[in-house]
């Protein structure tokens, strides 16, 4: 995974980069399965490796395939990233260990769902119970986000715009200047 | 009418006047009638409170709470009464004068001029009657803002620059220093009400009191204490009635009024004299008096000379208050009134000269007294009052200030007053002398002119007459001012 990510940083062919991102997502999905998150893995595979890739390819077709020439590591962002990473690593030192059953999250809200969801909600898939019922409101928000994105894409590059193209008013004046 | 209603009416009259004026903008005669009528009503309302205040009444009015435990409130006390009387009376005279001046010089945007004038007057009356420091501050700023369009009236590049300096200095001192002082006072004292004897006694260390006093004195930019005096000459670009408003009716008067008010009602004269004895204030105001006089002496532009004269005269008031002797405080209060009448006469005369002959420089005025005897006669009276020569009102206030300075042994102040009177004489008397006794210089484009328009002459005659009358009947103001001490 790290290899994929690293090659992503260096790679310049955008097409390859998108493919790498797809692979990265798939690898993440595999990891999710390993870590017992089957639902998430399913979604990640469908979304990260599927939808995102398709979208990216579509965008590439509409824009360009190549990145500009290579740039050396830029110092300021590097410093920011290093600082952020260092802070996180520093934080990990106090974290409960991976898979530790004594971690706080396994003792508060989580277990409640595992114990009660069958009797309170029903479905054996606890994730579904939580997603659709206990935290159904979050899911409503999630659907709204999808809705927002779709309407946003319509507003941004919806088809009606094409018919309008000859009309300079609705067109970006910048573009006209570009062509002139 | 109960006193509360009268206060209310006095505050609202100019505002209503402003609205009516803007509505009547198209009919010039009606518009100016409305202005005059409003001014007269305002004056009669103010003066109707006079007997009550003289008897020791302190009518007050609370409009409402603005911040928790901090109301917009008005209380009429002697000093405010004095200021309100002067402002509202001079508004009448000034309106008369404005009509002649504005028409005579074909100024544009006259409606805006009268509207802003009325609002400025409303703010002045509100300042005069303010019952606590916050109310005062609110209207202090309102006065600044409402006079800005007046200062930049001409709309020229020069007017714009003048307006920038005017607004820049007045707003930055008031927001930067005065505002800070007020909030701080509120924190320390828990109140901002004007209370005889002050509100700060025993509530803060001497250092803090000292800092606060400095914040107040420099924060009140309208009092033009050096180095924050530059706005006054800058504002000279405005039409003469506006200069009269700035120098006599409202703005600088509001400044020194606030200074005196802060010293008497926020700090308390006795408290100040036993705690920190603000000598530095004496020095700075003394320096301002002398420095401004010297600059005035060297200016050829008549209005500029008058402007620096104002700066020096304002510091008389500050110095008098800073002496902290009862008689000098009384002198300070009187000087506000006396200077108002004297200076407005001088400005009226300057504007009159400009209207009739379009002359602005002192050196051009040779022999003009023969063409404009009324104008220059009034100018002479005003000048004498500035110097403090009897039988003009200037003598009275200077005498009280000197008396107070002697009583408290402030020989430095005595010296400054004497030196500055000499300086005053040396920059005013040559003008009078030249106007009446030198021969007119013949220049090719010199046009034949006589006196200024009728209303202009009336206005300056009235103020000159009052300057003399006040010498013989100073009682109306002295009786009021005596209650302060």
């Amino acid at each position, binding site marked *: 995974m*790290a290899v994929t*990510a690293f090659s*992503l*940083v260096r790679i310049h062919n955008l097409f390859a980069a*998108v493919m790498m991102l797809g692979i990265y997502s798939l690898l*993440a999905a595999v990891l999710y399965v390993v*870590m*017992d*998150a089957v639902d*998430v893995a399913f*979604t*990640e595979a469908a*979304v*990260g490796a599927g939808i*995102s890739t398709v*979208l*990216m390819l579509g*965008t*590439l077709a*509409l*824009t*360009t395939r190549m*990145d*500009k020439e290579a*740039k050396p*590591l830029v110092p300021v*962002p590097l410093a*920011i*990233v290093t600082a952020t*990473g260092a802070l*996180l690593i520093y934080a*990990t*030192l106090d*974290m409960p*260990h*991976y898979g530790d*059953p004594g*971690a706080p*999250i*396994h003792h508060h809200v*989580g277990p409640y*769902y*595992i114990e009660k*969801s069958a009797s309170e909600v029903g479905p*054996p*898939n606890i*994730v579904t119970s939580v*997603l659709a019922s206990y935290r159904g409101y*979050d899911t409503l928000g*999630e659907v709204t*986000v*999808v809705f927002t*994105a779709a309407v*946003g894409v319509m507003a*941004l*590059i919806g088809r009606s715009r094409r018919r309008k193209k000859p009309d300079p008013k609705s067109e*970006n004046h*910048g*573009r006209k200047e*570009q062509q002139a | 009418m109960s006193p509360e209603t009268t206060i209310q009416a006095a505050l609202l009259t100019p505002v209503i006047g402003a609205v009516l004026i803007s509505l009547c903008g198209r009919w010039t005669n009606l518009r100016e009638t409305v202005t005059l009528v409003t001014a007269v009503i305002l004056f009669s309302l103010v003066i109707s409170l006079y007997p009550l205040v003289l008897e020791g009444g302190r009518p007050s009015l609370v409009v409402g709470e603005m911040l928790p435990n901090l109301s917009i409130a008005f209380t009429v006390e002697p000093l405010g009464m004095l200021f309100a009387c002067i402002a509202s009376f001079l508004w009448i005279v000034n309106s008369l004068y404005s009509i002649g001046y504005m028409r005579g010089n074909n100024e544009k945007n006259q409606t805006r001029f009268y509207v802003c004038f009325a609002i400025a007057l409303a703010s002045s009356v509100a300042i005069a009657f303010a019952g606590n420091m916050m109310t005062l501050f609110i209207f202090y700023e309102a006065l600044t803002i409402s006079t800005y369009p007046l200062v930049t009236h001409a709309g020229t590049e020069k007017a714009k620059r003048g307006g920038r300096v005017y607004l820049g200095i007045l707003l930055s001192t008031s927001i930067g220093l005065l505002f800070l002082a007020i909030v701080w006072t509120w924190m320390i004292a828990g109140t901002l009400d004007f209370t005889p004897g002050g509100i700060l006694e025993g509530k803060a260390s001497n250092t803090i009191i000292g800092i606060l006093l400095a914040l107040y004195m420099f924060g009140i930019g309208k009092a033009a204490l050096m180095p924050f005096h530059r706005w006054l000459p800058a504002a000279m670009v405005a039409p003469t009635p506006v200069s009269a408003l700035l120098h006599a009716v409202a703005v600088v008067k509001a400044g020194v009024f606030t200074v005196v008010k802060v010293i008497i009602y926020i700090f308390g004269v006795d408290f100040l004299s036993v705690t920190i004895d603000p000598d530095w204030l004496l020095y700075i105001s003394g320096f301002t008096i002398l420095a401004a006089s010297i600059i005035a002496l060297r200016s050829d532009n008549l209005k500029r000379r008058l402007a620096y004269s104002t700066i020096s005269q304002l510091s008389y008031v500050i110095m008098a208050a800073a002496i902290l002797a009862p008689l000098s405080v009384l002198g300070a209060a009187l000087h506000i009134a006396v200077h108002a009448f004297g200076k407005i006469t001088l400005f009226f005369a300057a504007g009159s000269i400009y209207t009739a002959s379009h002359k602005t420089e002192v050196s051009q005025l040779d022999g003009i007294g023969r063409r404009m005897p009324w104008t220059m006669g009034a100018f002479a009276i005003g000048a004498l009052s500035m110097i403090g020569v009897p039988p003009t009102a200037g003598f009275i206030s200077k005498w009280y200030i000197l008396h107070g300075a002697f009583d408290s042994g402030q020989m430095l102040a005595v010296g400054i007053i004497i030196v500055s009177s000499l300086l005053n004489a040396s920059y005013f008397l040559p003008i009078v002398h030249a106007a009446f006794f030198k021969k007119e210089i013949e220049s090719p484009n010199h046009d034949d002119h006589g006196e200024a328009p009728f209303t202009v002459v009336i206005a300056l005659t009235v103020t000159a007459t009052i300057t003399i009358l006040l010498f013989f009947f100073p009682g109306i103001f002295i009786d009021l001012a005596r209650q302060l001490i």
Partner: protein
Amino acid sequence: METFYGLFNYWIVIVLMMMGFYMVIAQHNLIKKIIGLNVFQVSVFVFYISMSKIKGGTAPILTDGIEIYSNPLPHVLILTAIVVGVATTALGLALTVRIKDAFDTIEDDEIAILEKEDQERERGTIS
């Protein structure tokens, strides 16, 4: 040593996260920025999921005879977050398409130059 194995997982994730973050802020290509954003977010998701894992646990689907389940809550959160992420990506890509239309490039630095020209033109035409 135990610390090392216990936290190693997190460290890997953090390194991945930071690679994505670096791409977002250092890359000039608008699409690569979005790719970076994806890497960044996916890594955060992995971080969430790895905290839900419990030793000896299984997927949180109730089955007879199994006692230990991984914590389902992070799974739910990440399901939501993934969707939010893809929505952002879609929008970002749509914007990129429009930018390509308007500026004829998707390189950040070139756009900055064009924008500066716009600004100067604005000043120039008026003055």
